[in-house]
Each structure stands twice: as structure tokens, then as C-alpha cells.
């Protein structure tokens, strides 16, 4: 008699043992069998259930992107490069004080505050503060200040686990600030049809973040040790536009780390990621980079509005004078799409190398036209030595 394999063991085989785990936290906080320790997902005990939520929600188990997109977005808005696009703006928070505390334009913080004050959400989940001992997701309610959690963290926090840990009744509707892999997991959660599971309905808003990679904690820790920089002294980090460095900020000044040293610290799973703009969020926010001079751009965000809800939130923010919005130059969108497409191709090339077959794409579906388009380009390019360049990301 053939017994169905347990979800947990499939998760282990398909994701954890393949170095595909992004540390998003989607499989954690559901039960005592999986936990995150530092940035590793650990399976503590054996679970023998075969239809577990852990595997269903994981963004790196095989899934059909088309079904997810149909459930959340208008087909007319679809783009191959950067997912659904309703609108594209450059934005920044009106409040200069808020901008000072933020990474770039303070857009995420401003929108969170607005969503909470307008009652669109009762609580928000963001990644914990920079000085926290362990990366984790934090649930913040109206009593707390989202600005306290502003500023980019370049390592993975298991934010989705914080959503799972919310009590069944009582927390109300929730907004989550999510990286692309987390946004994909949240999309699976929102569209899940699982007996007895109602929690997906409380997910009201997903604000996505542009993302190129995260840093593996242990290797990043070694890097910090080499630079004699205790982690608790870090006040922020950034990749200044046009410069090939990672800037680490402390109270006593900044330390610049060459990007190829940083590259050694990138989490393995990130190299197989095709989504640099959080394609499954209601709206996605990144640093304005293209189509202007860097000095002018720093201090602004670029925003992709994807869903009706995302559109309404941005409009409201603009109308209430909380957010300054301006038309982005044409070039900006084109350059963003071009960069995103390049990342997809690089990731797909690595995926094929790992799976050893152009028809086996690990967690991606080769029948998804958005995937197929870049897969074909990669296969055509295969004669050219795409991956032989050093320092490829």
C-alpha cells in the first residue's frame, strides 16, 4: 500500500535540501514542527500529515503563478517583466521628519500609518528592528509607531510566521510589508481554500518591497567581524546608487564594503529567485533609481501599483497630502523592466543548471507564459557563456 508522503518530508526534499528556502517564514508559526533559528528553517520533529499548510504556503514549492494572479489581479494589467502594473509613480512622504527616519522616501511607513488611521487595517506586520538579536516579524497595532520599524534590513526575517502566530480572533485585519518571496507566500495564503482555515481572509493589504537578494546571517556576521563591526552598532545599511558598495552605517560613521565581498554573503536561495519587484503584492515599493540624477533620486521611492486596493490607498495618500506623487519618466519604467527581466533570466539559467533539465523548473511552472518567455530566451542564450562572469547576482 502506497502511503502518501508527508508534506513536511516533501518540503524538506523539495525546498530545504535544495537550498531553495528563502527564510520567509511561511512554514513557521503554523505548528511546533518547524521553527526558524537565526535565518535557518529547522524541522524539529517528524510530522506525518500529507496535506499540510506548510507545504501549501511555501513560495518555493511548485505552484501555478497564473492561478494566483487570476485570483488577485486584473489580467489587463499583466506585464511579463514586473508583474501586474496599474500605475507607476515616484513618491515620497510629505513629512520630512518621517523621510529622515526612512531608507529613501518613507513611502511604506506613510502608507501603513494611513491604512491604520483610516481603519483599512487594524495591525501591521513588519520585520523587527535592526538591533534585534534575531530576525523576526513584528506585529504592530495602532498603539505603536510604524516609523520605529523604518529602514531596510538586508537579511531575511521570517515575517510570514508573525502572521501565522496572530490569534484566530481578535487581531482584526492585517497589513504586511513583504519581500517578493513573502508576498508570494501571502498570495498563496490569501487564495488558499483549505478546510477549516479562515485566517487568509484577515490579510487585507500587502505592501511589497523591491528586492535583489538577502544576506545569509552567518556569513554576514563573519563579514562584520572582519570589519570589527558588532551587529548591534549598525544603525542602517544601503546600496548608494551608482556605487558598487554596501554602505554600513553606525553611530560613528559609515563603512563601505566592496560588493564582491557582499556577494559572497548572499543567501543561496536568492540566486533562484525570479521576482525582484514583489509581483504578488497590492503595491510594491523600491528606491527610485532610474531616469534621473542619483542625488535627486535619493529620497524618493518608485512605486508599482498593482491592485484596486493598492490604487485606492495611494490615491488617498496623495489626496490627503501625506504622499507626494510625481509621474515617473518613461525611461525609469523601461529600465526597471529591463533590470527585472535580466534577473529572471539569470535565475532561470541557474534553475535549469540545478534541475539539469529545461523542462524541470523546480518551483516554477514551465507552462506559465511569463516564465516560458524568459526560459526560451535563456535557452537561446545558452550558447553564450552567461554564467561564466565573476560576481554575477
Amino acid at each position, binding site marked *: 500500500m502506497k502511503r502518501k508522503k508527508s508534506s513536511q518530508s516533501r518540503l524538506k526534499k523539495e525546498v530545504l535540501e535544495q537550498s531553495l528556502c528563502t527564510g520567509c517564514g511561511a512554514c513557521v508559526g*503554523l*505548528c*511546533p*514542527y518547524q*521553527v526558524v*533559528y537565526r535565518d*535557518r528553517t*529547522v*524541522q*524539529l*520533529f*517528524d*510530522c*506525518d*500529515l500529507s*496535506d*499540510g*499548510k*506548510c507545504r501549501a504556503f511555501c513560495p518555493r514549492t511548485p505552484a501555478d503563478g497564473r492561478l494566483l494572479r487570476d485570483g488577485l489581479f486584473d489580467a489587463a494589467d499583466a506585464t511579463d517583466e514586473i508583474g501586474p502594473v496599474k500605475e507607476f509613480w515616484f513618491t515620497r512622504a510629505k513629512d520630512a521628519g518621517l523621510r529622515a527616519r526612512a531608507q529613501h522616501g518613507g513611502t511604506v511607513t506613510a502608507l501603513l500609518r494611513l491604512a491604520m488611521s483610516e481603519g483599512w487595517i487594524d495591525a501591521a506586520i513588519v520585520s523587527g528592528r535592526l538591533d534585534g538579536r534575531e530576525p523576526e516579524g513584528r506585529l504592530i497595532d495602532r498603539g505603536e509607531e510604524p516609523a520605529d520599524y523604518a529602514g531596510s534590513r538586508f537579511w531575511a526575517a521570517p515575517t510570514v510566521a508573525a502572521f501565522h502566530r496572530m490569534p484566530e480572533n481578535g487581531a482584526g485585519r492585517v497589513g504586511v510589508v513583504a519581500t517578493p518571496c513573502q508576498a508570494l507566500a501571502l498570495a498563496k495564503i490569501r487564495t488558499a481554500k483549505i478546510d*477549516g482555515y479562515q485566517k487568509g481572509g484577515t490579510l487585507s493589504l500587502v505592501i511589497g518591497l523591491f528586492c535583489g537578494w538577502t544576506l545569509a546571517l552567518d556569513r554576514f556576521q563573519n563579514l562584520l567581524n572582519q570589519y570589527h563591526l558588532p551587529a548591534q552598532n549598525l544603525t542602517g545599511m544601503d546600496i548608494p546608487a551608482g556605487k558598487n558598495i554596501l554602505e554600513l552605517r553606525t553611530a560613528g560613521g559609515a563603512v563601505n564594503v566592496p560588493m564582491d565581498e557582499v556577494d559572497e554573503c548572499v543567501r543561496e536561495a536568492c540566486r533562484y529567485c525570479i521576482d525582484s519587484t514583489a509581483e504578488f503584492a497590492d503595491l510594491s515599493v523600491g528606491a527610485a533609481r532610474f531616469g534621473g540624477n542619483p542625488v535627486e533620486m535619493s529620497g524618493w521611492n518608485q512605486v508599482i501599483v498593482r491592485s484596486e486596493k493598492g490604487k485606492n490607498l495611494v490615491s488617498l495618500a496623495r489626496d490627503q497630502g501625506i504622499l507626494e506623487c510625481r509621474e515617473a519618466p518613461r525611461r525609469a519604467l523601461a529600465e526597471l523592466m529591463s533590470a527585472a527581466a535580466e534577473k529572471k533570466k539569470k535565475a532561470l539559467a541557474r534553475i535549469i543548471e540545478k534541475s539539469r533539465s529545461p523542462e524541470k523548473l523546480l518551483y516554477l511552472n514551465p507552462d506559465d507564459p511569463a516564465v516560458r518567455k524568459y526560459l526560451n530566451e535563456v535557452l537561446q542564450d545558452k550558447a553564450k557563456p552567461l554564467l561564466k562572469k565573476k560576481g554575477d547576482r
Partner: protein
Amino acid sequence: MTRLLAPAGSKVLFLGNEAIARGALEAGVSVATAYPGTPSSEVIESLAPAASKRSLYVEWSVNEKVALEVAAAASFAGLRSMAVMKQNGVNVASDFLLHLTASGTRGGLVLVSCEDPGALSSVNEGESRYFAGMLEMPLLEPADFQEAKDMTKWAFELSEAIGNVVMLRSVTRMSHASGNVVCGTLPAKARKAAFEYGGPIMDSQTGPMISTPVVAKHLLRRQKLKAVCALFEKSPFNRYTGPARPDLLLITASACWLYAAEAVHMLGLQKKVGILKLGTTWPLPPRLVSQYLRKARRILIVEEVMAFLEENVKVLAAGNPKLSEDKTFFGKYDGTLPFAGELNPDIVADALVKIFNIRRCGLSSSYQEEARKTAAMLPPREQTFCAGCPHRASFWSIHNAIALDGRGGFVCGDIGCYSMAALTPANGFGTMPTLHSMGSGTGLASGFARLAPFGFKKPVLTVCGDSTFYHAVIPALINARHNRADITFIVLDNQGTAMTGFQPHPGNEVNALRESVPAVDIAAVCRAIGAKVAVCDPFDLSATGSVLTDFLAEKDSLKVLILRQACALSPEKKGKKTFEMKVDESLCLGDACGCNRLCTRIFRCPALVWDRKKKKAAVDEVVCAGCGVCASICPRKAILKSQAASAAASGG
């Protein structure tokens, strides 16, 4: 207790070990020492309460080597003394024993070894009879309870007659079974201790107690065996029952005599099989054994565990052509009886059936069919930690810390209740892949941790109990420190020698005689060795987990975590609950995704039961010890704990 001091002539129902104790009292024993070990512990346990009435010093020594040394000192001072241990204890004492049988003794000294064929309560199936042969000391084996008493008493006299240790060997079925014993007289006068040593070097009664000159004293020891053989030839402990010319001579000793007698009776072979029961099994009395060897063509030797008796009989026979020509020996060497495991009447009966080529009337086939069907219905009952055992909580925390660490850490196991973490891996959550003798866990860990230059990257942990710590671990710990072995050492301190029946040890402030004594602090010893020491309550899962995680992350140092929480069966806890536990069924997720029966399937305290109809967990109030740990592991906080009334009344 008064049973042990019953007046002469009374017939008392004694445990085998109690009979041995009574025999020692009748011999006027002054000092009795031991380290607890099943099946030997009751000898000292029954003597201790009688000590105050009999001018007797009784001691739980820190290990069997020291126990024998303490008994030897008494013997050197002219007092009769006894050291009691299980079979592996003799191994521990063996270095001293080697020198003791060479130096000789003065006051009668009896070494009682209670052994465990079949390893019912051991993780080895060792044998100490070979020590008798190797160290040339007389060996006596009682085959019933009256003999257990009488032999022990006589052993002291024999020891004084030859000035050497006498070994008395028992087995589980003798030590832990009971039978009627007619008591003898208890001596009125007690001896006085005196130690003089100015006499000639070869005179162990007046000279120095030393094993040198070695060869000369060895020859002297062999000489004494002649006197022993002479006494053994006439010993009432050797008995024959059966026909004058049996078809089969069955030579046996110890509890095997009972199996053999029963097997012969079952098969109705009394007219064909003669049983020679030997009580003096080394050195074999040559004339006596030869006399019976001559009577039969076929000889079966029945013994546990190894072929000690068989080898000695064959050596004797080989020395005399008349005894060995035309004879067939059956036993272990020819496969008639197994070389391992306990014997029983059925096994001996099967051997006889083979030898006599007869059919055995077993149970009817319908009965056997019923028996098979019934057996299939029996629920599996595995060895597990008691409800409320601190070890379950400790291994839960150890397992989780190892999993979070992620480098494949493992625990070198040791001897105690916590050995069950290796015996049934589910009990230890899969953490313990090695298990050997007392104190060997730390020794192995000290070795594994030095393998980094060979590419070994796994974190090394080891555990031991509080009693084991004093017994054997300290030298290995010093070795680890001095040789810079990076290990995480966890002492599972449940405040007593639990596995063997909660005897006191140097960590307790009370001894075998219920006197108030100073305790030796484990933490202080570890600190003196130079280890980093932390103490936690294993029931506090998060504090314990936190320390373990920190320790595992810390490299290049010796880290000791003492997990201190009394055993669930300790006098202070037995029968008392700290908490009342109950499952809230409305919160319990049962076997659904999100829990999948963590408490009953993985944690598996015997007090947590799975209701298959309701599909919910439940607490069995009768089994539950009220420790409260399960409340911490439930993902839904569905296990509720409230202060127990008795705990509240006594101040918690």
C-alpha cells in the same frame, strides 16, 4: 527489618539477597559495602536498618572499586567484611581485586556478585565467574535460598581458612526470588579492629599487605587452592540426585539447577537423568566430579551465561584419559544450549528432547492458536520515562537545541534511567547514539571532541546522572578539560541513585545509615576542574533551551549544565502533584495540521492519552505526576495547569 534479625530456628520468607544478608550477619560481618546495581542492591538495603543493632558499618560507596577497598581495609584489620555488586561492578573492582587476591586477606572477606543473565536490568551480559578462575579465588554459587544463607556464612570461614577473598555468585532469579529459610544463630560478641604489619613479608596475617614479591605470592596463592579443593570434596553444597548409572549426567549450578530439575520432571526423565548440582564451582573438586563423570557416557552441562563450568569440567576430563574417552559432552560448545541469554525450564527441556530424541507433549494446537490470537491483541508496552520524569524534559530541550544548532550534534550516553534515551530512541528524541558503561559517555565525548583535525565537525555532548558523576565521570571530565576537548556536558541531577531504587550518593546529605553527612557539590567540582558551569531546572524548557543553545554556540571550552530536578519517584515527590493538569478539548487541535498530536505522538508522557473517538488528547489523572511540563509544549495552550491542592497546602 526485624525479619533479618529473627531468632535462631525461625523459618522466614527471605528474598535471595536477604538470605545472603542474613548469612553475613550470622557470620558476624562487621563491614558491608556496595554500589547499587540490580540485582544486588537489596543486600545492603536490608543490612543498613539492622546496622545499629549489630555493631555493623554499612556503606554505599562511590563505586565498586572503592567499596571493595573499604571492605578490604576492614578485613586487614581483622574484621569480617563483605563487598556486594552486580556483574559489571566486579569489572570496576577488578584492578584492586587482582592485587587483593595476591596480597591476601585477614578477616573473612566475601565478594558477592549478583549477576544478570539475559540483561533484564543491564546493558551488558557480563560474567564474573572467570575472575574466580583468573584470580584463583574460591567461587560458591547458591542454588536455593537456604543455601544462599548457609553458603554466605560459610564463605567467611573459608576466606579465613585460606587468607583470601571468596566470591559468592548469585543471579537475578536467586537474588530477586523468595523462599523459606531456617535461620541460624547470630553471634553475641563483636570483633575489635587491629592492624599490625611488622611480620615477615610472605605472611599476610602479620606482615605488610602487599602483592609483592609477585611470583612467590602467586605460587602461594595456588598452594592455598589445594586446601580449598580438600574442603570442596566434602562440601554439603554439592549434591547428586538420580540413578546410580544415569543415561545422561547433567552437571549444573545456581538457578540453572531449578530449571534442570523442572525440565527433567516435565519430561519424566528422572530414571534416566542424574543431576549433579555443584555449589563449589571453582576450583572444581576433582575427585568428586571425576566420580560422577565415570558413571555416564553422556554429559550435559547447564549454566548461565558463558561456558565456564563446561570448560572446567572438560579440562578436568581431558587430564584423565579414563574420564574423556568414549564420552560425549553436550553444552554450549556443541550448540545444545545458547551462549547468550537467560535459561529457563523450556530451554533445558528442548536440550533434553534433542539429546534423548524424544517428543515433547506440548500444548494442544487449539490452545496454541488461541494463544497466538491473544498475543496479537496485546498493546505494545515499551520502556519509557515515568510520568513527571525530568529526563523527558531534559532530552526535549537537548534535542531542540541540537536541531537549532544544525550541525548534527549528538549525545554520548551513560548509565542510569536516562540510558533509556538510547534503548528506545523515541524516548531521547533520537539524540543518543552511544551507550556503554558508567562514566564512559564523558570519556567518549572527550575523544570525539578531539577529532576536529580529522574533519569532524559535529558538536559533541554527553550526559550523566548525579550518582554516575561521582562513580566514574570525574577523571574523564579532567581529561576533557586538560586535553581541551570542546564538549557540552549535562548532568541530569535527580537527587539520588534512581534506576536502582533511590539509594543515597555523595550528593545527598544522608547516608545508608540515615546519618547526616556532608554532601559533595557537583557544580563546585566542575568549577574546580575549570569548566564553565550553569544550573537550570529542566522543567523550565525555555531557560534550559536558552543555556544549551548558548553552550552549543560557544567553541573551545568545557561547558557543564546541571539540570537539577528531583526524580518523580523520589521520597519528596512520590504521590504528590505540584499541578493538576487537564486538556481543554475546545482548544485541542488533535491530529489536525497545526499540531498532529505533538503531546501524545512525540512528547509521549504516559499520562497523556489519545482519545481515538473524540480525536482529542486527554490527561490520565491517575498516571499524571503533576509536573506541568506538557503545558509548555502544547501549541494551542490547550493543556491547562493549576496549582494542586496538596502543593498549595504544603507551600508548593
